[in-house]
């Protein structure tokens, strides 16, 4: 049990650091507080440039095959690069889904032509991908999706509505799953497509969240034509393709960002309760200690799973644990930070609320973290079923034709 790199790992880490030092600045040590990072044209441009630079130097798609522009590296190298990159002040990363989820799925299920056409532009940040899965009536129950794709000659004609799609308003392509045969049971009648987001009939609207920001979009599809050679996998195989993409998500999603135990601890050192430093209050200490213990637990759980990955293992339930614990903790810390301010807690005025209103902003965005990318409840189900081997929920939609499944009380 040790934290030292192997010789190979150390060599790669040095290489990564050299690249980063040459191309980016280290983060300032005192970066604590709320930073609003609007995804405007400039931010997207910077993100694309950084992606292209990494691609050119072999620091993205690290475990992709060389023939698609990758490095043929290891999962461990990808992890090491991510560790190192996190120390630098680099542009926002909008290519996670493209590189970590969309293209690996393309390589698994696509034809050589498809992967050959799409992999490199994605890697170099020339084409951005989004994921067109969820629908207004199919969130936790993703396989309940109703967007229809009907065959028409060499094309498919798609009608329906997708939702919770990140980056849809500036993505060039989408990974789309749609229902091609509603008379089959739920999981059997789906097919997977590559959607050119510039196709006629695609309309993207941003969704405003509680916090006022818009990280997600709705995508309306009206008689959108997709050529059959943009089908990914066989007809009726859509669910299996979608599962591949979701499995890759486990490599990509991380913990909910926001004020953590160290942040609230630093704040409690400076804040005052009844004339004393708040950190002398036993209840404050107790809560912060428990959050710190959770964070350390997540960190070492991640290291355990990285160890397993480095030995050729597959990702386990760590991503579910990390999301479940970190989103709940984020909300607790945010609420608590506001409480510590007493009568002033509700104030969000940047100059007045401490840390640029970090706790207040987090109060507003934390609820979304407990829902998007798998609700707390779905994550608990996943852990109970996949890890503990407990039976699935009783299913009212099993073995019957999709179009006979109840969808409302009426």
């Amino acid at each position, binding site marked *: 049990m040790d934290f030292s790199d192997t010789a190979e790992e150390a060599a790669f880490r040095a290489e990564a650091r050299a690249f980063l030092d040459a191309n980016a600045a280290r983060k300032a040590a005192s970066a604590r507080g709320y930073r609003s990072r609007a995804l405007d044209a400039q931010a997207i441009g910077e993100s694309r440039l950084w992606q292209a630079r990494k691609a050119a130097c072999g620091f993205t798609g690290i475990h992709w095959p060389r023939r698609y522009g990758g490095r043929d590296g290891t999962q461990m190298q990808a992890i090491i690069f991510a560790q190192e990159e996190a120390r630098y002040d680099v542009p926002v990363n909008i290519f996670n889904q493209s590189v970590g989820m969309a293209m690996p799925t393309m390589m698994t299920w696509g034809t050589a032509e498809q992967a050959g056409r799409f992999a490199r532009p994605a890697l170099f940040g020339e084409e951005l991908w989004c994921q067109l899965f969820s629908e207004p009536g199919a969130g936790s129950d993703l396989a309940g999706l109703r967007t229809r794709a009907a065959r028409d000659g060499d094309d498919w004609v798609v009608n329906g509505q997708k939702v919770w799609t990140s980056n849809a308003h500036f993505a060039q392509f989408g990974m789309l799953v749609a229902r091609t045969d509603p008379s089959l049971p739920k999981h059997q009648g789906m097919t997977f497509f590559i959607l050119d987001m510039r196709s006629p009939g695609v309309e993207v609207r941003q*969704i405003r969240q509680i916090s006022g920001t818009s990280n997600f979009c709705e995508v309306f599809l009206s008689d959108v034509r997709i050529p059959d050679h943009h089908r990914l996998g066989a007809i009726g195989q859509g669910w299996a393709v979608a599962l591949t993409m979701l499995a890759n998500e486990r490599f990509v999603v991380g913990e909910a960002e926001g004020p953590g135990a160290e942040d609230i601890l630093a704040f409690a050192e400076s804040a005052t309760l009844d004339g004393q430093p708040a950190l002398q209050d036993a209840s404050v200490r107790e809560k912060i200690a428990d959050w710190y213990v959770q964070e350390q637990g997540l960190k070492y759980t991640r290291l355990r799973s990285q160890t397993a990955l480095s030995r050729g293992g597959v990702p386990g339930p760590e991503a579910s644990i990390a999301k479940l614990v970190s989103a709940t903790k984020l909300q607790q810390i945010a609420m608590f930070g506001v409480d510590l301010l007493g009568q002033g807690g*509700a104030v969000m005025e940047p100059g007045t609320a401490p840390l640029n209103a970090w706790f207040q902003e987090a109060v507003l965005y934390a609820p979304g973290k407990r829902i998007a990318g798998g609700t707390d409840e779905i994550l608990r189900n996943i852990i109970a079923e996949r890890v503990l081997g407990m039976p699935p929920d009783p299913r009212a939609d099993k073995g019957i034709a999709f179009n006979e499944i*109840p969808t409302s*009380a009426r």
Partner: protein
Amino acid sequence: MNFDFSADTTAMREQARRFLSDRIAPGTVRRQAESGAPFDAALWSDMARMGWLGAAVPEAFGGAELGYEALCMLAEEIGRTLAPVPFSSSIYLGAEALLLFGTPAQMRRWLPAIADGSVVATLALAEGAGEPAPANIAARFAAGAISGRKLPVFDGGAAGIVVVAARDATGSIGLYLVERGPGVVAHALRTLELGGSAVALDLDGAAAEPLPGATGWPDVMRLLERAAILFAFEQVGGAQAALDMAVAYARERFAFGRPIAAMQAVKHQLADIYVAVELARSNAYHGAWALDSGGGDGAAATARIAATVAYERAATQNIQTHGGIGFTWEADCHLHYRRAKRLSGQIGSARFWRNRLIDILSARNVRGEPDGLQ
């Protein structure tokens, strides 16, 4: 024994609920907030006309004199609907301060105007972060004028008069009436709540007259304790509304071929919320009794803690039960969540009231039934 609202109040509740549900549809509150207006003036004057603003104000001062039980009920209904009006500021804090500590002349001057809605009142106690405490009051009163910075002052943008907590030359803390005018500058303040008109109030030699009944910090606490019970009813109303929204949505929303309300995860979470709301309601009832009778050692703190916890939990769970739609701007879930968090801190956080409760309990030298039970 009768531990329920009177038949009169219950009948009035039905009217109030009908009236408010006619006036406040889903989206109304959000659109009101987005409009930038500090409150819904038409709704406010209708409330005045129905006697709600003067519910606890004697007829002699232009009130409807319906009593505190009625006021508690109205607070609950307003909490339930998130009615975009400065009810808590003007009534629980402003009118109450005048009733408790004002001279007859002050009451004659201001209470009729508060009761008819022509003047909005509010309380300026806080000076930034911190719980209500003498140490957190720096504003100074001297020679008929106050200087200092007060924030947040909720509904301060709408208020014509402000009850300001300040120290006099001897350091003693009192409450003072300040009218909008020279030396009073209000800066709009962004808060967690959507809408309203919270401000930071810069007082620079603003003309102020004492509310002479308030002779020190214990009187400020008396005001806060009475207000805490009214806030508790507002919070209970909000918590109930959030729970009702969650239950209704869970029954409608289908996943895996079944309403999500049939799933134990959803059922049990909402059962727990129901329990929290029900306990908070019962504690608020005891508060209502204490408000009327002057009894009930710790009743205000107990009601306030239970209501704060219940509303925060209910509003948070309501978003979670709604899933994706729950954290969108267009769904009204966040209105309760924001209101719950704003009400949590105003007049002191749960932490503040827990401390007060323990102080009260440990100071009881004779244990017994402090609530008037036989």
